[in-house]
């Protein structure tokens, strides 16, 4: 893997620190007029999501991390692993629960997901921003109540629970924003 000088640092660059892959969040060059220059960077651990601060002497280098984002199709879950397929070459990849994380509850078979690979292995999985799912269970609620204030929990086919307006019923298909976990609209089949 390439090494990068601090002069090549910019947000989004993936580097290795203490054996973990990180993405640079921001990078500030500081230098006393007559002294040692430093790069103060904030970096996000791509395994844990934690953001930490690091300082480099300007001109020093960091090893690049072999991290790429790919679009993979979700196939199935075998009880332990989530299986994905690269639609370009039909290669199959498996991701564990750590990598799938919160995305698990939004994964419907055949969905196209953005998967971050580190050294070719899934490091994290992002669900599609919007998913279309069937409600399997929700209280009947009151028909005709369209006031915005209320809402009730509804369980979706993947087990995810979202708040929906009172007029939405079991068996209906809805659109959900997975980034916020919020109901967007009903979908007419």
């Amino acid at each position, binding site marked *: 893997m390439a090494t990068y000088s601090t002069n090549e640092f910019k947000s989004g660059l993936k580097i290795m620190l203490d054996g973990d892959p990180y993405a640079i969040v921001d990078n500030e060059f500081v230098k006393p007029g*007559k002294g*040692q220059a430093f790069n103060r960077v904030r970096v996000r651990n791509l395994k844990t999501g934690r953001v930490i601060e690091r300082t480099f002497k300007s001109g020093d280098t960091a090893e690049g991390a072999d991290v790429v984002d790919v679009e993979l199709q979700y196939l199935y879950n075998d009880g332990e692993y989530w299986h994905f397929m690269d639609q370009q070459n039909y290669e199959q990849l498996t991701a564990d629960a750590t990598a799938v994380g919160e995305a698990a509850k939004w994964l419907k078979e055949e969905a196209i997901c953005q998967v971050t690979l580190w050294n070719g292995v899934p490091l994290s999985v992002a669900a599609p921003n919007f998913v279309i799912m069937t409600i399997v269970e929700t209280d009947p609620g009151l028909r005709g109540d369209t006031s915005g204030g209320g809402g009730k929990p509804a369980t979706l086919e993947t087990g995810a629970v979202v708040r929906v307006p009172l007029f939405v019923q079991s068996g209906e298909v809805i659109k959900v924003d997975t980034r916020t976990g919020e109901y967007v609209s009903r979908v007419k089949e």
Partner: protein
Amino acid sequence: MTSAPPAWRPSADWGTLRLRADLLAQIRAFFATRRVLEVETPALSGAAITDPHLASFRTRYAGPGPRCGQFLYLHTSPEFPMKRLLAAGSGSIYQIARVFRDGEAGRRHNPEFTLLEWYRVGFDHHRLMDEATELVATLLAGRLPLAEAERLSYRELFERQLGLDPHRAAVAELAACARAREIPVPPGMPADETDPWLDLLLTHCIEPQLGRGRLTWVHDYPASQAALARLRPGDPPVGERFELYLGGVELLNGFHELGDAGEQRRRFEAENARRQALGLPSAPLDEALLAALESGLPDCAGAALGFDRLVMLAAGKASIQEVIAFPVEIA
């Protein structure tokens, strides 16, 4: 598909660009009333700065003439030729110069920037701090309210902010201080040299606190950080260098100027040896400057003020890119 046209508009707004012009005019008026002479010196020189922390841009001159085929360096400040003018009898002088420093870009750095540099014959560093306080107060009047300026030594600064003596603390004490303040210590910090540790503490802990609502002057630096300044004997001897901070921004650096040619040559050579140790190209010494010092530099103090940063403060802008029409990213 057509690609987007390159960004061609200035990154600074018109109010800021007009303010730049106003401030330049005010600087010229300030020095005109004090009978300080405006001068111009070359940006290209056969000599370069030896300071290992400054990197000069280099270009090869195609000729014609005696310098044909030689490397020429873009100046990092106009200091050396201005001292030649002083030695030649100019009296007090100032210059508003575009200077160039490789490897410096960020919120407060552009590799090409504008320095106001001036020298006052017969002044020591304290008298020049007085004049610079007046100048900055004049330029910021009505734009940034300032309380009375404060002045403290490098030692007082570190004692006040970190409770340690920068002239005596060993690397272990500085490293412990950095860790106690949760500074992420960079890899490769030296075990036998304190200056990089002092710079780490200065940039991470101290500078952001300096010049809050007032001008903060720092003076009397460790001799190792003042290669062009006079040393004042003492325990330990200190370099008569001074710095001005405002709003956490380093705005000006100056010296009570060293006039001893032999001592200056030794310092240049020590810096070049340091460059070699760091794997940096050595810099050709400015023999014309050394000859000028040999013939006699009048007793003087000099200062260089980062004009773009002054505009940032006057305009209330957070980055240097907002006060330069075309910063390096779009130059």
